[in-house]
């Protein structure tokens, strides 16, 4: 039985470690937490295998056989030495794991040695994320976006706030998360280590649109990060662009802002059900009204839908020219 248990444990550990548990290791924090998880697996598998092995062995060796119907087992009431062992050993194992976890915790939350840390605001609102780059980062005016862009290999400290209920800012590939709490500003830091685009997810139930409160984070080289920052201060739609260019730009904005997460719009191929179906409600509506619906969504609400569900921040996060383009697109797409 002991041999079987050891072999099963070894196989179990190998299998458990062979599974790709974590998403991509895109930050130093992910690396350390996934290593901690590997250690937990190595400690856990033998305990589970031990219990299963004893149960299976007992079933095989001690199950009642014909003729034993009236027999009892030996009256063993306990064994002090065994009981001490199975109290002390697990306690030691647990204290060891706690100590290691404590070290990892200190590690992943440590401020970088050189104070070259990026500070970015994260703001949750039912059901969208906005990100604020302060003046010290942009070098010019404060910048608010709906897409998070981070330079690689540089520690970033998020300051997380919310406009309404509790949200939770989570990038699974960074393995860190924290609630956005009404009345508080909460903080955590990550150091992205891998270029790429990763999902941003709301992890705390925040209402109707919780499951579509997603965004994305793009990790780029420092140079590209600076170029992106500079681009943001120039309008996305050229002044005096023709109607066709406006509509095309508006279609892109509709996609990048995640409008389709909540709204159905045939032209954009989206099927969201949180908010009104735009194909129906915008048909024949004039530009001014569409614009009001975007910047002040509670001014007039489609029948059957509640107030305070659509974010009221698009007036701030979209520039005038972007709004014009989006309105032009919606007008065109629902004609």
């Amino acid at each position, binding site marked *: 039985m002991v041999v079987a248990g050891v072999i099963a444990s070894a196989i179990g550990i190998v299998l458990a470690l062979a599974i790709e548990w974590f998403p991509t290791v895109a930050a130093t924090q992910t690396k350390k937490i996934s290593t901690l998880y590997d250690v937990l697996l190595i400690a856990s598998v033998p305990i589970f295998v031990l219990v299963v092995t*004893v149960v299976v062995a007992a*079933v095989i060796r001690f199950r009642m056989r014909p003729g034993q119907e009236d027999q009892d087992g*030996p*009256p063993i009431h306990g064994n002090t030495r065994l009981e001490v062992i199975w109290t002390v050993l697990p306690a030691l194992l*647990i204290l060891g794991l706690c100590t290691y976890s404590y070290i990892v915790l200190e590690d992943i939350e440590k401020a970088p040695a050189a104070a070259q840390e990026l500070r970015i605001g994260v703001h949750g609102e039912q059901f969208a994320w906005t990100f604020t780059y302060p003046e010290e980062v942009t070098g010019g005016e404060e910048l608010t976006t709906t897409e998070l862009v981070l330079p690689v290999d540089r520690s970033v400290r998020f300051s997380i706030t919310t406009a309404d209920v509790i949200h939770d800012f989570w990038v699974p590939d960074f393995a860190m998360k924290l609630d956005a709490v*009404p009345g508080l500003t909460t903080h955590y830091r990550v150091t992205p280590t891998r270029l790429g685009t990763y999902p941003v997810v709301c992890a705390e139930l925040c209402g*109707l649109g919780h*499951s579509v409160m997603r965004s994305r984070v793009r990790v780029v080289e420092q140079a590209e990060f600076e170029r992106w920052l500079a681009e943001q201060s120039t309008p996305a739609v050229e002044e005096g662009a023709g109607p066709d260019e406006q509509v095309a730009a508006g279609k892109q904005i509709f996609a990048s802002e995640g409008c389709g997460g909540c709204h159905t719009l045939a032209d954009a191929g989206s099927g969201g059900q949180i908010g009104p179906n735009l194909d129906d409600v915008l048909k024949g509506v004039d530009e001014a009204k569409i614009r009001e619906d975007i910047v002040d969504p509670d001014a007039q609400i489609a029948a059957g839908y509640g107030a305070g569900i659509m974010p009221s921040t698009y007036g701030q996060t979209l520039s005038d020219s972007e709004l014009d383009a989006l309105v032009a697109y919606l007008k065109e797409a629902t004609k």
Partner: protein
Amino acid sequence: MSFRAPGFPRAGLGILVGVGLAYAIVCSVRALYGWDPVVDGDAVLQVALIAAPLGFLIGLGAFDYWFRWAIGAPTLPEDHSGHGARSWKDYFRVNTDHKVIGVQYMVTSFVFLGIGGMFAMLVRAELAQPGMQFVDPNAFNGLFSVHASVLIFLFIIPVFAGIANYVLPLMIGAPDMAFPRLNALSFWLLPVAGVMMLLSFLAPGGAFATGWTAYAPLSTEAPIGQVFFTIGVQFAGASSIATALNFLVTIVTMRAPGMSFFRMPLLVWANFATSLLVVIATPFVAASQFFVLLDRALGFNFFNAAKGGDVLMYQHVFWFYSHPAVYIMMLPGFGIISEIIAVKARKPIFGYRMMAFSLLAIVVLGFTVWAHHMFVSGMQEWIRVPMMITTAVIAVPTGIKIFSWLATLWRGVLHLDTPMLFALGFLTMFTLGGISGVTLAMVPFDIHVSDTYYIVAHIHYVLFGGSLFTIFAGVYYWFPKITGRMYDERLGRWHFWTTFVAFNCTFAPMHLIGIEGMPRRVADYAETFAGWNLFISIASFVVGLSTLIFVYNMVTSWRAGVRAPANPWRAMTLEWQVSSPPPIFNFDTIPTVVGGPYEYGVPGAVHGVFKDAEVKTTATPAGAAPAGD
């Protein structure tokens, strides 16, 4: 049909009076304040949700005896007409017999298991594919919220109270519980709470959709359906507290002569420990929901940050109950497993005293860990490491129990029938749930997997693989005692194996998709998780179908099973020393306990003996009028 006698007609009248009272109170207060409109539907509804159930309970007769006593009217002489069941109709009345109440509890809570399970099927149907197919996001959030609330507050907690209600007085040689009328009231509070939670689907804006955790300020701003949870929990909680007090007094004062604490069966110990938890912790969940109710109904600002409210306070108060609640949902199961493993392995429980002490250790430690639910809540950071250590340390007393059960199996003569299969299934599955619990205690890992499917996997390994397996084990084990008939062993095994396999297929992959990044409580998810979700949904339907085997077995065996002897398992504990089902007053002579409850294999050992009438008992027979104290 009489509206004067206690019963359902008068209960219906009570509901109407309650609703009328709600209108009267709300309209007169609003008129006095000069508020417009005078008739406010939401306000009336909130008062009616409190008044109508009380009207129902008064009409049903739950308070009759106390009211007569309180106003100084002569109390009715006890004729035992409300004690014991002589026909099926007696199960639909206020009945003071603990055995009738135990059956009422168990049948009611299994009905809620069916309903809560159906909600789980609907949730899995929606999640079988990404995108929305069957329900809209609001209905989805309502489904999983009601699923969790019903299964926690109306299945697991009360079904354990029901099993203990039936067998605990028998096990300690008592004729009934200490407070039979309170016991009856405790039961009837439950259907009230359950029906209220289900009725929330009819509320404007849909059922409560904020999870069973009902975090503020989402819950204080949600549509009116939320109140059905807020107030429903009060009734379920009141039921729990009253039952726990009843168990404590019963265990302390009504044990048979000779039954010292260390001669009590471990099921009695387990319910003693659970009742301590319930009495201390449950008022906190009541408080948390009263805060929400006051915020909503009367414009308090407990959780309105803009007016100085503290959002995190909700979570602290809520989890100060709801973590111990996890042990409330597990310790009675530990008791059931101890009974079954000793009897079915034909050996004494290994390390009986440590088994009892470890229960008490879990009770004490259970109150020191609540903030591990809040590692990513934004609370003060220093508390995380101390709570990580206390949380992980609970694995030590739990480990003592697991290893002691394993040692009890060793060298026994194992009867591998249905109760034992579920007990062994529990041992392995609960170990897995316990291990994932230890990993969740580790703060850095918890930061990553909080609010993901890893949590869903963990809680279902603990509550399904843990609690529900012990409930199935216990129901099969005591089925002959309760019904006087044997269940179908072959169907029982089918039930175990289909449930065991499908359960693992459903919940094991959730560990993986959780770590990979799928958040919980989402109506829609990223394409990458589509494969596993389809697999999980299909497996979950098999779990649902496997439960039908159980229902069929229970119903047909109860109606037409083979007659059960008094003691089919050759068990030593006292409930098996009386007929199946037991006489209305349990024991014709009160037993005297002369030894431990699990002395299997000790030649000539007995737990209790029935001496003839010379044994004096201080316990009052059930139903006898208390002497005015």
